């Protein structure tokens, strides 16, 4: 490699002590040093002009790919019953084994972690990754890291997915992704500790909870609440609004109200009593209450919350892509979707589940009946029109530059 050769010269240039030639060598060394510096560079994968794939991309990707007997899934914590009953049933039905790992805690780190491997065209060890519709979704898509889905192989999805989920703004026509579940970002709290009902975002700034308030470290999640508390719609916010929101968030920190910024670990902090009131994702609290007998509450704040969608996607280098599709489609069976929703308590993309869940509740007895009825009527699993009116979507950034500006406003807040 040329640059290695020149760096050899560099070392000689820096270490040789012979006078006459020294200056010449030093100049040469400096020149090759800068040449080496400039020769380094991180190749991008970007093809931003062509966000939509070529018409034959689907056929080209799937050509020659055959079914395999194993699938590796990268998911988030608290997204499935730890006993994995749905996956066991899937394996006994299809003979495909599933390795389900809860390795994703936050989108930024996940993208940064797999980016080098995907850029080097290597498998990341997972055939399915469940990714949120935020900034990183676009980064995945624009980098060409997502396989175009063969929708013909997803008959259950075609039949059972709700219409809203078939045309989401971040991936129109489900070219690269189909939803796993949606969720709401709101506030979770421990009523025993706060001593009162929590209803609004302003409560996150209440000095009474000094050192006991948690917020998300994900800049988008954090910024959304900073904007909403000021009455600004995140989707329509301007760079000036961002600065105002950042100031508001800094205030929360400088006054010592904030305990920390969290990723998925906020639920552990809530469980340990480290925070009393925190920014939270809707289903987690329910599962925490079930598994640990706690009595935490989750609310959508008066000022509004956000709604997001976590999506199945297949990395372009996945070795078991065909079986991955089989598994994805399996989750769109109404019975399976019902079981999943009943356990994880997140918004399901399969509307038929509500009816099924009511039937199941009617047939069940005791505690099961109570839980199932509660889930079937929960606005967190089946939000009503009124609920949706209070919920905002993530902001779509038009260009990487716009996102970078956004990051440079909120990143120093989180890391300050």
């Amino acid at each position: 490699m040329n640059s290695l050769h020149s760096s050899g010269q560099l070392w000689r240039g820096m270490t040789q002590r012979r006078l006459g030639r020294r200056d010449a060598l030093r100049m040469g060394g400096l020149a090759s040093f800068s040449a080496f510096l400039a020769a380094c560079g991180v190749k991008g994968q970007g093809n931003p002009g062509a966000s939509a794939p070529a018409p034959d991309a689907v056929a080209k990707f799937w050509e020659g790919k055959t079914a395999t007997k194993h699938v590796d899934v990268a998911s988030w914590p608290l997204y499935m019953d730890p006993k994995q009953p749905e996956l066991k049933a899937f394996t006994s039905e299809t003979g495909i084994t599933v390795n389900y790992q809860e390795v994703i805690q936050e989108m930024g780190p996940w993208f940064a972690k797999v980016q080098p491997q995907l850029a080097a065209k290597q498998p990341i060890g997972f055939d399915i990754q469940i990714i949120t519709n935020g900034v990183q979704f676009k980064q995945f898509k624009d980098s060409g890291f997502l396989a175009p889905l063969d929708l013909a192989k997803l008959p259950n999805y075609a039949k059972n997915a709700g219409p809203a989920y078939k045309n989401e703004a971040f991936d129109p026509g489900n070219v690269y992704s189909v939803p796993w579940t949606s969720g709401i970002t709101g506030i979770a709290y421990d009523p025993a500790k706060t001593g009162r009902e929590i209803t609004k975002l302003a409560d996150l700034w209440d000095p009474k909870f000094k050192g006991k308030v948690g917020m998300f470290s994900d800049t988008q999640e954090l910024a959304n609440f900073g904007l909403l508390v000021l009455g600004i719609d995140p989707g329509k916010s301007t760079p000036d609004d961002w600065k105002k929101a950042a100031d508001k968030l800094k205030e929360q920190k400088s006054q010592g109200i904030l305990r920390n910024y969290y990723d998925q670990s906020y639920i552990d902090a809530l469980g340990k009593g480290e925070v009393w009131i925190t920014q939270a994702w809707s289903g987690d609290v329910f599962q925490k209450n079930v598994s640990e007998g706690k009595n935490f509450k989750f609310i959508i704040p008066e000022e509004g919350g956000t709604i997001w969608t976590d999506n199945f996607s297949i990395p372009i280098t996945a070795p078991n892509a065909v079986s991955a599709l089989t598994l994805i489609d399996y989750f769109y069976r109404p019975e399976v979707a019902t079981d999943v929703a009943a356990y994880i308590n997140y918004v399901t993309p399969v509307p038929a589940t509500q009816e099924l869940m009511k039937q199941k509740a009617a047939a069940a007895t005791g505690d099961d009946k109570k839980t199932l009825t509660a889930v079937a009527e929960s606005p967190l699993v089946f939000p009503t029109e009124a609920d949706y009116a209070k919920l905002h979507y993530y902001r779509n950034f038009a260009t990487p530059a716009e996102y970078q500006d956004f990051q440079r406003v909120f990143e120093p807040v989180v890391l300050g």
Partner: protein
Amino acid sequence: MRNSRALHIYTWVVVAWLTLPVAVMIAFGFNDTPGRYNQTWEGFTLKWYGRVFGIDALTEALLVSLVIAIITAVVAGALGTGIGYALGRYRFRGSGTVNLILFAAMSAPELVMGASLLTLFVSMGVGLGVTTISVAHIMFSISFVSVVVRARVLTLDRSLEEAAADLGATGWTTFWRVTFPLILPAVGSGMMLAFALSIDDFVVTNFTAGTTVTFPLWIWGATRVGLPPQVNVMGTLIFAVGVLIAVLSGVRSRPRRRRG
């Protein structure tokens, strides 16, 4: 003498302070907690020792860590012994530079080493995984092995080698039959050091791992929702093995030291 009494007590207080978190870790491996969340004491049980390999991902992470640590010990052992032997035995031009690099590699912040390796790998378009982790671990272990071996070579009694040469042994034979057995204990402890550094490393690994998960990385990720008791059990077992090896090698090397 009153002073020394106070210092004696103080030393034991420090030892207790150092040991407290380890004691807590060991204790919670025996905690009869109903599920995954291991925070409050629920009673004594041995069941987690029976289910120590009950979490596939954790077991796999431990295996990955072991494989990397063995690779590191072997490769860094070989490369580091070369450098250490050369520095201890020969006077040569450039030995100062080698010393300087060894020193720099030992004193550079781990964070910067990990981060700079990541920049190398992304600049070269190399994907991350077991290979890149091993490369990194070997890199930071070489200096430690070198220094250990060099220290031994410097104190070596050269008359033994001279005697071998007098008896007609070639340089090569002398090395393998006389010198190598003499420095072998140092090579062994250097390799053990490399193994220990590797299996415990979090910072550099975090930068060079990609989606590969080692034992410390798994623990780090799992704290997000609560550590399962299996982690305490594995921590306890690793602790026990480490202590055992240290005690045994200490006992074995003691008489030799007395003679020297």
